[in-house]
């Protein structure tokens, strides 16, 4: 069996015989592949509207569409998905057109066998993961640059305005100096914060991995927070299975758990605050879960923005923080090939699920 973990493939093919052959190849390859087939583009698109898929195997000629238009229509609906064209057409010009329009590969049906399909899938999965990681890093960098510009501009603007107003006698010297010093301190703190974020993100891409027990790291984190936990009156339960191990960087795993636990303490409820740490397998991944009965969040205001740099949900509760932790946590998890999900309700609590 292959090392592939939980892959979902949609095969758009109007020839039932071809469909059956591919299904056999794929099922032989790995039992972790979920295979779905549709005979028309319309059926495929309607299935895609409700399902996440990793790879689409696409015949350009289906009952309801023909040629490169098939690919374009699919890309229009789902620009992110990895598409491998399977065609009986040997015309190189069409193959080139398909690749230029976003297909990741173009394979001739007649030339395929089980081994070739296996190699193609492995190669394209790897390429797709790397491409998506690069695209994500590009977007992160763009967002980071915007935040740097914005946050450095603010204290500089204040200094500029302050000097102009001081020159026109709107401020006493002592007042001017106090505000100028405060602006310079903010400028300095902001630069330090950004440097820390940048170093952290760089390290996240280079760390060494080893086999570690999830429970051991969780216990270490709770031990570090022992005094804070006692002072805040939070009851922490570690329900993690002792046998759950993962190949991960120890520092990264510690950082993920630490961030989620410290947030759960920070945003705890006033009465009988609890935190439960759990683990289980879901979607082919080991899941670390941090559940609390704290303040909770109204995620209808923007679940996606929860993980953005300098975004905070509890800005009116007088709780300190700059909104960096969750963004860093998400970065680490994604650098390691996982993802994070959250469920929350105001006044009830939050559940963070880390698919490691």
């Amino acid at each position, binding site marked *: 069996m292959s090392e592939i973990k939980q892959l979902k493939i949609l095969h758009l093919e109007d020839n039932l015989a071809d469909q059956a052959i591919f299904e056999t190849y794929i099922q032989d390859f790995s039992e972790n592949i979920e295979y779905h087939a549709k005979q028309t583009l319309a059926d495929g698109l309607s299935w895609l509207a409700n399902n996440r898929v990793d790879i689409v195997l696409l015949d350009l000629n289906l009952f309801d569409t023909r040629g490169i238009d098939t690919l374009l229509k699919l890309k229009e609906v789902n620009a992110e998905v990895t598409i491998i064209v399977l065609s009986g057409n040997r015309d190189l010009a069409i193959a080139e057109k398909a690749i230029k329009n976003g297909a990741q590969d173009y394979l001739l049906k007649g030339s395929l066998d089980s081994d070739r399909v296996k190699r193609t899938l492995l190669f394209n999965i790897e390429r797709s993961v790397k491409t998506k990681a690069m695209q994500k890093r590009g977007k992160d960098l763009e967002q980071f640059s915007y935040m740097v510009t914005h946050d450095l501009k603010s204290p500089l603007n*204040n200094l500029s*305005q302050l000097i*102009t107003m001081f020159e*026109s006698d709107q401020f006493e010297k002592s007042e001017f100096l106090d505000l100028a010093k405060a602006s310079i301190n903010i400028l300095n703190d902001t630069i330090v914060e950004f440097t820390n974020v940048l170093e952290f993100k760089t390290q996240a891409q280079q760390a060494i991995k080893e086999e570690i027990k999830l429970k051991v790291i969780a216990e270490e984190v709770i031990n570090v927070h022992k005094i804070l936990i006692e002072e805040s009156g939070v009851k922490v339960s570690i329900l993690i299975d002792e046998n759950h191990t993962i190949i991960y960087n120890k520092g990264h795993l510690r950082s993920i758990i630490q961030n989620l636990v410290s947030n759960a303490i920070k945003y705890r409820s006033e009465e009988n605050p609890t935190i439960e740490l759990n683990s289980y397998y879901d979607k082919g991944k080991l899941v670390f879960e941090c559940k609390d009965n704290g303040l909770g969040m109204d995620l209808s205001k923007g679940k996606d923005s929860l993980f953005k740099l300098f975004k905070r949900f509890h*800005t009116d509760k007088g709780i300190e923080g700059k909104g960096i932790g969750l963004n860093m946590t998400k970065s680490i998890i994604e650098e390691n090939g996982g993802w994070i999900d959250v469920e929350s309700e105001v006044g009830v609590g939050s559940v963070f699920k880390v698919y490691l």
Partner: protein
Amino acid sequence: MDYNRIHIVDDDIISSTLLKRGILSVQKDVEIVLSETIDEAVSKIGDHNDLVFLDQNVKGRSGEEFINEVLTKGDLGINIVLISSHFKEQHDNLIQKFPFVIGKILKPVTKEDLLKVLC
């Protein structure tokens, strides 16, 4: 134009202090209210004839969120001036979409900017 109250909605306290001082140098007899969060600003907003200087990023929440929350209170007869150190196309869209959003000022706010809005 004379306003009963002027609100400054900005999580940057130094920026608010400077703007407040700038406003008072142009219009001396006006009540100025400071808010550091969108929720605080929404709760403090008056019935009518208020002017709001609204920063476009208040502790991670956008100025548009403030506008949408104020709209749920009905027609309050307020005017809003957007302030920011960096404007995007979406801010021009707010000015076009809502007649009570009467303009935008790029930080640092100058006396000339304030004279245009307040006189």
